[in-house]
């Protein structure tokens, strides 16, 4: 055992990279759930984003264009979910699961011919001055654009949800769609927009995997990240700031256990891997006593005649 071989600065820096995909996807899902919709199709939207972003980045040579395509791809898949649940009033749990199945198949089909290709590199942007700071520099300010964007998105989502009228309306729709409708808000339209936003974020998260973190395309490469993002939203008790903390925790435990192994520490991998989920359940229990609970209309279908 040689713990001194673990460099905390590098560990934190790779933790930030490892947590970015689930952070992006979870932020999107947070907005969706705050609007009262439970979309279990995150995995399907992520992997669709991963291949859309990859294919377009390879063909255009620009990762930036790739990320835009990924957001569009994720949103396009989310649109299917929106049509099903908001217009055809299908059950959200079943529709979300079907969406994952569909997305995994679609991405594998789209991805034929993209195996073994290297995407154009996404440049790291060292923020002047800040990136020269000891510890904080390499940990926070020497990453690629998407990391900064994800962090900015945390702040934006928090701000919009808590400090703007649009956020207030969104939350009202999620808490009590009947009352929101009575007040004249377009429940369905607001929810569709939230779902599309969620899809775009999941798509970005997926593309971050295929363009930066892994970077390559292989079938099924999200390997359950979408499900972790779902857990993360719950862990964060539907608060943007806590999503960031949670992403570091969920991503961090994985990175930490790999580092501990490399340092020669014999660790019970399985128990460590299940700990975030047990912590999430604990958080849920504590929260139930508290006032901040799940959005009251979460997962319920809305029709104006109800």
């Amino acid at each position, binding site marked *: 055992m040689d713990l001194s071989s673990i460099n905390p600065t590098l560990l934190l820096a790779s933790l930030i990279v490892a947590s970015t995909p689930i952070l992006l996807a979870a932020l999107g899902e947070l907005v969706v759930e705050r609007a009262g919709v439970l979309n279990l199709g995150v995995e399907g939207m992520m992997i669709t984003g991963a291949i859309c972003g990859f294919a377009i980045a390879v063909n255009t040579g620009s990762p930036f264009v790739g990320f835009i395509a990924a957001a569009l791809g994720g949103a396009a898949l989310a649109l299917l979910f929106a049509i099903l649940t908001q217009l055809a009033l299908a059950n959200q749990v079943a529709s979300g699961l079907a969406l994952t199945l569909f997305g995994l198949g679609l991405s594998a089909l789209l991805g034929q011919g993209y195996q073994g290709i290297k995407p154009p590199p996404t440049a790291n942007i060292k923020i002047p001055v800040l990136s020269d700071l000891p510890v904080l520099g390499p940990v926070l300010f020497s990453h690629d654009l998407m990391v900064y964007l994800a962090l900015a998105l945390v702040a934006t989502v928090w701000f919009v949800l808590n400090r703007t009228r649009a956020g207030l309306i969104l939350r009202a729709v999620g808490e009590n769609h009947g009352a929101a409708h009575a007040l004249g808000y377009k429940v369905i339209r607001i929810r569709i927009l939230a779902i599309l936003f969620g899809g775009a974020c999941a798509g970005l998260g997926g593309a971050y995997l295929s363009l930066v973190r*892994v970077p390559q395309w292989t*079938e099924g490469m999200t*390997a359950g990240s979408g499900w972790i993002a779902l857990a993360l939203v719950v862990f964060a008790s539907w608060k943007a700031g806590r999503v960031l903390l949670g992403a570091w925790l969920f991503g961090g435990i994985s990175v930490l256990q790999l580092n501990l192994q*490399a340092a020669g520490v014999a660790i019970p991998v399985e128990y460590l891997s299940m700990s975030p989920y047990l912590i999430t359940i604990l958080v849920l229990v504590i929260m139930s006593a508290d006032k901040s609970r799940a959005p009251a209309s979460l997962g319920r279908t809305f029709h104006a005649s109800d």
Partner: protein
Amino acid sequence: MSLTRILASAVMALGLAGTALAEDKTKVGFIYVGPIGDGGWTYEHDQGRLAVEEHFGDKVETVFQESVPEGADAERAITQMALQGADLIFTTSFGYMDSTINVASKFPDVKFEHATGFKTADNVSVYSARFYEGRAIQGHIAGKMTKSNVIGYIASFPIPEVIRGINAAYIHAKAVNPDVEFKVIWVYTWFDPPKEADAATALIDQGADVILQHTDSTAPQAAAEKAGVISFGQASDMAEYAPLPRVSSIIDNWAPYYIARTQAVIDGSWESTETWDGIAPGMVEIGAISDAVPAAIKAEALAMKDLIASGQYHPFTGPLNKQDGTPWLAEGEVADDGTLLGMDFYVEGLTAEIPQ
């Protein structure tokens, strides 16, 4: 045999007879555990299938099914191939072992070939590659190339096959570089690109400048490229990462074996066998050693390859001790296949423990 079982096999035989008449082509089936586009394990098996098609042309028809889960679904998939008139079926993952044996007992006229397993029957052969021979060569190159003297190893599951690879690589790295140290991470998956990438990054962060992997995706290659360290292709050549970070590779080349076994079925000379082939017959190939490796080291590596191929050198040759210091092989003694197949210990010098 109970009456019901006789009836059952009669029903099966009936189904078989129906198709056997319509056949004149030899039909060869493949059951894959992953997608054919995984870039590693399944990809190479599918390359073997394509080689069979090319070699025999119109005489042979091949069918395959990808991403077949091990267990109940595998048994059905194999059965359905046998029903559809396959004459020879390759099941290409360890987890298909019992399913293959079960189906084979119902279709005595169909030949089965199970990769990496150890259960045979009159119509079931097993085959596997001596991957550790390639590991020895990788270990040699790695030991010579490392500057930090830290070599990172991404391992899948603590099974003999993987442990054997770690030992073979370590012995030969240590032989050329006594200061070398191995850091091993067990990721408990054969295929999880993000996790493999994280594991590679963790190893690199802790000073490794050579990455060996026993998992199937190319994610560690990409991580190595980003960090500017060297790596080796696994199962497949992974040539898209040459000349750096990928300096060489071990390739499973199943084509010669698949062609030979198909030929045996066509000739009617097929027999149940246990094959464990290495570099010599070409089942294990060493991918081109790139120019990033100095010519002298490359020559040494190729010389070792020739010695292994000719049978003059065995990668597990004594004197070798087990990790706890107890003697394993005496001077000049060569490990027997039984010990290698059940290998559950590290050799002396490796510092970590094998997880239990």
